[in-house]
């Protein structure tokens, strides 16, 4: 009877040990998971933000390129305008000189 009682107590202690070991293992799983989760958070965040930074840089680069391209069209237009102004001014040069002379001498 005593032997049977002792056997039961031993087995119960073994059962406690099995559960305690499982609890320790569970705590380790959670602790590891916590670390992995923080790394995953950082990695996911950095990947997304890095991608966005690349896109931002690309946006600025393209804006500058487009603006410079427009400028390349705009300046020759101004030069063309100047040519036209000079052509007309040449035709009206004598008229302008005479008019200023009249103004001075009148």
């Amino acid at each position, binding site marked *: 009877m005593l032997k*049977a009682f002792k*056997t*039961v107590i*031993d*087995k119960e202690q073994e*059962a406690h040990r*099995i*559960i305690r*070991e*499982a*609890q320790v*293992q*569970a*705590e380790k*799983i*959670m602790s590891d*998971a916590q670390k*992995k*989760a*923080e790394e*995953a*958070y*950082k990695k*996911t*965040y*950095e990947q*997304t*933000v890095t*991608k*966005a930074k690349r*896109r*931002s840089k690309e*946006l*600025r680069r*393209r*804006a*500058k390129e*487009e*603006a*410079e391209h*427009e*400028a390349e069209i*705009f*300046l020759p*237009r*101004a030069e063309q*305008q*100047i040519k036209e*102004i*000079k052509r*007309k*001014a040449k035709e009206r*040069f004598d*008229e*302008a*000189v005479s008019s*200023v*002379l009249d*103004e*001075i001498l009148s």
Partner: protein
Amino acid sequence: MESSVQKFTDRILKDAREEAKAIVTQAEKSAEMLLENRKQSGRQKAEEDVYALLKRAESEAEIIKGRVATETRREAGWLVLSNKEQLVTNVLDEVKCRLGKLQKSKRYTPILERIIINAGTALGGGRLEVMLSKDDLALPLKTDTLAKAIARETGVETHLKFSKKSVEALGGSIVKTPDSKVIVDNTFEAILKRREKELRFKASRILFQE
């Protein structure tokens, strides 16, 4: 008796192993969920920051476009304007050149006489001194005729005296009171300088009219 104890203890161990397995399984599930939740949080936080980042980049891109466009327009405007200014300057240079030639022409004497009469009239007649350029001192100007013309305009008896000192000028005259307190400088250079803005405006209106 022994067999029932064995069964009982086997049961205790079996239950304990099952409970242990459940504890570990639960921990694994929780770990998996935690990992997924943090990934999701990372994505969400990144998306918030990315939204602001892209908004800022879009706004900067617009500023870059605007700045380049403004600089280009300013540069183009400056180019057009400086060319126009040069064209107007060319007109005034030609005017100076023609004024120089005019001084040597027959047309000049009556023009100079009128300039002197106008200046004398502006001074209100009286005793006046006239200064001319070196070349103009040799012109056959009639002092009495000029003085009479001024007197007619002002109603004041006028005496003109031509100074022996000459002035550096393309033409025109300086008329002054004997004490030099009031001077009318109508040399061509002075007229050009005094009326430069107005003359440039006049020239540009003719040169650049549409």
